[in-house]
């Protein structure tokens, strides 16, 4: 028999091995899943994890795609990780992402077709505000009325999706679009376009900013008192109370930061890779970012790596759809599995197994 003993000292080794083991286990169980769907498991796994980077036929297209997809995941996951550390659960990033895009696009299109260098910077601010406002609703309701932020932030995703429908069918619909739903394409509007900075690499401003944010969050968490307080309130709310700060302040900070980052991620997407507001503009980055945050163990460097890996599974997943006719949902199952293994592995991060002699 064995029993569990809480780990007194943090083991970086175990903490690093967890995500690694989880990925390997996901590959194995994912392979079984693919096999049961009648697909060659080795080919599918190779196509998801290897081909987007190394294949001669696809890599030229898919390498930039990895950065394009990783940027929003990293931006959103960084914001969420703050709250998750402090036990503040914003799971409505998908809605904040949509609202950031709508705010930014609305601002830009209201000025169309006038050109100015100030338009794009103000759009970025509008994106932050849009996501921030959407996250402040659960924050305020939690602070004022102790309403559960998980449920409110999630409900607001569905509301945001309806506003998205309203925008693409109504107030943002392209007047020259022959009645089709969807806004004007911002890529045809130079002042509002978030173009590739280096041709063929996929690097747009959002990618650069997501990398800067990784560094910024690293400093914030490990070198700044706010990072310490966030960890403190997560581990021991009672100890935090002695610091004299109100826990409400943390609720507002964590939701505002995560909402703002989700909003700006939406803005970069709508002005860049997506180009326009459409009914199906959101593709689930806000939810996948939750997995990214955990896969990265809520650590900025970890989140960066996790964002790249998760983007790889997205791009690889698309390849398997085209090439092997795998359903799109298979990759979602794959991602869910990964999260299960990760969370289960936390047992060994938090506890030591002690074998008992009978």
């Amino acid at each position, binding site marked *: 028999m064995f*029993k*569990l003993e*809480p780990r007194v000292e943090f083991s970086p080794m175990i903490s690093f091995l967890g995500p690694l083991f989880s990925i390997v286990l996901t590959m194995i169980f994912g392979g079984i899943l693919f096999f049961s*769907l009648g697909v060659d498991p080795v080919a599918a796994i190779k196509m998801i994890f290897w081909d987007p980077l190394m294949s001669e036929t696809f890599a030229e297209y898919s390498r930039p795609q990895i950065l394009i997809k990783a940027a929003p995941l990293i931006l959103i996951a960084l914001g969420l990780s703050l709250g*998750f550390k402090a036990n503040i*659960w914003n*799971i409505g990033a998908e809605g904040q992402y949509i609202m950031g895009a709508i705010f930014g696009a609305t601002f830009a299109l209201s000025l169309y077709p006038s050109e100015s260098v100030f338009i794009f910077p103000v759009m970025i601010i509008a994106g932050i505000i849009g996501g921030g406002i959407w996250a402040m609703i659960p924050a305020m*309701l939690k602070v004022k*009325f*102790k*309403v*559960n932020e*998980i*449920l*409110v932030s*999630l*409900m*607001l995703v*569905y*509301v945001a999706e*309806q*506003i998205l*429908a*309203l925008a693409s*069918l*109504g107030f943002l619909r392209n007047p020259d679009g022959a009645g089709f739903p969807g806004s004007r394409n911002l890529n045809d509007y130079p002042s509002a376009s978030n173009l590739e900075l280096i041709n063929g690499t996929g690097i747009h401003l959002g990618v650069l900013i997501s990398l800067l944010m990784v560094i910024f969050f690293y400093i914030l968490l490990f070198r700044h008192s706010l990072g310490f307080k966030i960890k403190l309130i997560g581990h021991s709310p009672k100890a935090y109370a002695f610091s004299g700060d109100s826990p409400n302040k943390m609720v507002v900070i964590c939701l505002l930061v995560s909402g703002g980052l989700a909003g700006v991620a939406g803005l970069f997407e709508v002005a860049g890779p997506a180009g326009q507001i459409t009914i199906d503009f959101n593709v689930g980055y806000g*939810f996948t970012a*939750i*997995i990214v945050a*955990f896969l990265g163990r809520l650590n900025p460097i970890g989140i960066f790596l996790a964002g790249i890996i998760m983007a790889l599974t997205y791009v690889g997943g698309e390849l398997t759809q085209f090439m092997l006719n795998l*359903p*799109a*949902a*298979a*990759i*979602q*199952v*794959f*991602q*869910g*599995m990964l*999260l*299960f293994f990760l*969370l*289960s*592995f*936390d*047992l060994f991060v*938090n*506890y030591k197994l002690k074998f008992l002699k009978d």
Partner: protein
Amino acid sequence: MDFSEINIPILIASLIVTATPLILAALGELIAEKSGVLNLGVEGMMIIGAVSGFIIGVETGSALLGIIGSAVGGALLSFLFAFIVLVMKANQVASGLALTIFGLGIAALLGHPYTGIAPPQFQSFSLPLLEDIPIIGVMFFQHDFVVYFSILASIATWYFLKYSRRGLVLRSIGENHDVAHSLGYKVIATRFASILFGGALAGLGGGYLSLVRVPQWTEGMTAGAGWIALALVVFSGWHPFRLILGAYIFGGITILQLNLQAIGVNINIAILSMAPYLATIIALVIISVSRIQGNKGAPGSLGVSFVKVT
């Protein structure tokens, strides 16, 4: 637009049908939460119930077997959750989210070949004599047995929690698992059973959606119903009867909104479609304001992993 097109007895009857999957899923979650487990995977378990019930219904040609299959499907998925949070002691909030993501994916995968097929007809189970009462008969007594089951299950749950010895043990485990453990009660076993019960009922709710209410399989068809069920548990203050009340109010809002869309009222469809979600948020605010002192009803150990110390 013509408001006289809205038939009130039929409105009430369809309100009850709308509320039934919510009652079932919320009731299961209520038991799990009373035992101290917060399972945010209700949406995932519901959609697995919806797809497994639909597939079994179509393949066997029996709606009844489909309904049973939906409960089994939901329970199977919840087994995974129970293992991860009870044995591996994983964070319950994150594991519940994982369960939802995983469940939505599996359901989309399994359901894909079944899109657009009509499921077997469900027998309605009218209550003799009562069904013939004018108006009231249409509203309350011409439903299928799942509707009556949801009411009976609520009463049984209430009785179980309030008056039975096992119910008392379950509640004590939810309030303080360390004390309950030191008294010799089986914390992990009880919670395991509660999670499975919750999964079965959530699955049943999902099966009711795909086999009776819609009745069809479409990807992501639960559309947040699982999350609304979670909100209902909070709204009810962990009380089965207030849970029924909340579900019927919510069902009323949804049905009214659909009726207004149908008669072409001059409000944008997107705005009407927001109504159920906004109503949920407003309900949560009202309920929180009314019991702002202390979280009355919430179990003390809710969401905390249990690890044997001795």
